[in-house]
């Protein structure tokens, strides 16, 4: 619904004011953190901004951060690709062959309900401390999200169209390419977009459980040595990565699916 402004926006919604308020809020939070640390709360427990930010900078400058960051991103991207690829294929298959999906649906629902994180120790048992368990946890999470979204997208397909196309002699591949994919395209993209942050989550969780490298490992390393500065530094890096990913995906969605907004 388009809101038409008949008058100037209220003072608190003008862009300059908003930006000032946001900066001020962040500033207040950081200042409060700095003030509380050492006075109300032992600095040992919460560290300070003046320690954490230089620590992050130090990690970047000495190159300490990069192997860990790259390790995490490797697991994330590989897990995402594996999960998304299999998820799209499975979603298409289930959507096009409803009888198959009816047979399998209780099993799929049961597997979907289980927290995929609970599978992480099993994967570590099977595959060791390597990249593989992290990729698998991420892939599992992504698989279910993508598969369900693709399935929903394909299920919306008009049955008459499908019957007609089949009667005209379409092969399975024709069905997919000319009917299923175009119908489900938007939903497929939504599934991919929402699942990518979960790939990051899966990779980091895998690292927390068993790893010698990566951002999740850094948080565990900080926890083990009770070093809150390192802990907050690692979490800050994680937050920056996550925000970059989220904002990037939103931009991508606006570019690819911008036409959808205009329709409303």
């Amino acid at each position, binding site marked *: 619904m388009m809101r038409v402004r008949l008058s100037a926006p209220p003072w*608190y*919604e003008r862009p300059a004011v*908003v930006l000032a308020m*946001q900066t001020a*809020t962040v500033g207040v*939070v950081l200042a409060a953190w700095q003030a509380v640390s050492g006075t109300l709360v032992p600095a040992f427990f919460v560290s300070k901004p003046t320690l954490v930010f230089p620590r992050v900078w130090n990690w970047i400058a000495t190159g300490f951060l990069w192997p860990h960051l790259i390790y995490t991103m490797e697991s994330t991207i590989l897990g995402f690709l594996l999960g998304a690829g299999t998820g799209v294929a499975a979603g298409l298959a289930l959507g096009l*062959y*409803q*009888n198959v*999906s*009816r*047979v*399998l*649906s*209780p*099993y799929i*629902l*049961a597997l979907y*309900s*289980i*927290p995929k*994180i*609970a*599978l992480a*120790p*099993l994967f*570590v*048992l*099977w595959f060791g401390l390597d990249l593989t368990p992290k990729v698998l946890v991420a892939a599992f999470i992504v698989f279910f*999200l993508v598969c*369900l979204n693709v399935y*929903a997208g*394909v*299920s919306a*397909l008009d*049955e008459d*169209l*499908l*019957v007609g196309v*089949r*009667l005209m002699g379409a092969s399975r591949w024709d069905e997919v390419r000319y009917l299923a994919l175009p119908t489900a395209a938007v939903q497929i993209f939504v599934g991919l977009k*929402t699942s990518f*942050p*979960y790939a*990051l989550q899966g990779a*980091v*969780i895998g690292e*927390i*459980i068993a790893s010698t490298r990566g951002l*999740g490992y850094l*948080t*565990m390393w900080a*926890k083990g040595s009770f070093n*809150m500065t390192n*802990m907050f530094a690692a*979490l800050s890096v*994680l*937050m920056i990565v*996550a925000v970059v*990913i989220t904002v990037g995906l939103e931009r991508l969605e606006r570019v690819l699916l911008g036409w959808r907004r205009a329709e409303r």
Partner: protein
Amino acid sequence: MTIAVGTGEGAPGARIADDGVPRRLSGVRLFLWRAAVAAAVLVPWQWMSGRVLDARFVSSPTAVAARLAEWLSTGFIWPHLWATTSEALIGYGVGVSLGLIAGFVLGIFRVLSRAVSPLLTGLYAIPKVTLAPLFVLYFGIYAPSKIALAAVVVFFLMFYSTFNGVRDVDSELIESVQILGARTLGVLSLVIIPATADWIITGMTIALPYAFIGAVAGEIIVSAKGLGYIIATSANTLDAAGVFAALTVLMILTAACNEVIIRLRSRARQWRAVSRHVESM
């Protein structure tokens, strides 16, 4: 993240017979196919365990079933099941309450929400479960850290649902009620709360599984009790039967939860349909 999970009722793609008419599997035949799928997984697993695959790593259906029976008869499983469930539910309660309050406050006072939004984006983007080591440092290795983790996960989901719900309220409705003389409390009770009820219920139903995810994740990382604890220690001691048995219990627990949620959501949808109908009259 709303995902429509369909079971294929009235959907396209049913098996097409030669005359082009779709034939849909149901009833006994459906049950037999499902049983066949289960057998296709369990039988090879049982056969391969000990022969092709090392039983310590994959266990076997019979061993897992025996372990489950043992757990039930000795009562071993109940304290752990209770630990996980109580951590998840308490975290859920805390997260929902805080999320509701924050969602309403920030939804109503737009100034606040604008000012705080970059902080929220940053906090929301970070995978909450990765805060687990931090919570363990702060809250210890027992239940409180798992409750805190579950609460944080649930909080964000609830907050966004409530916040969007409040923002979605048609300002015309608010204005009409204000013209009729309602003050803040009246506006709240007559317009805002009923209008957001739908969003709130949806948020609550989405958040419940995540409470379990938070609790189990916390238990796997460090714990002394609970299903996640059993999974982690069994894996560490090469006890695959224990891992699979615990996973089965977890699966039953979370699947039951999801069933409850699906029922609640269809109820909520009916309620919403009725209220929309009333609105349009």
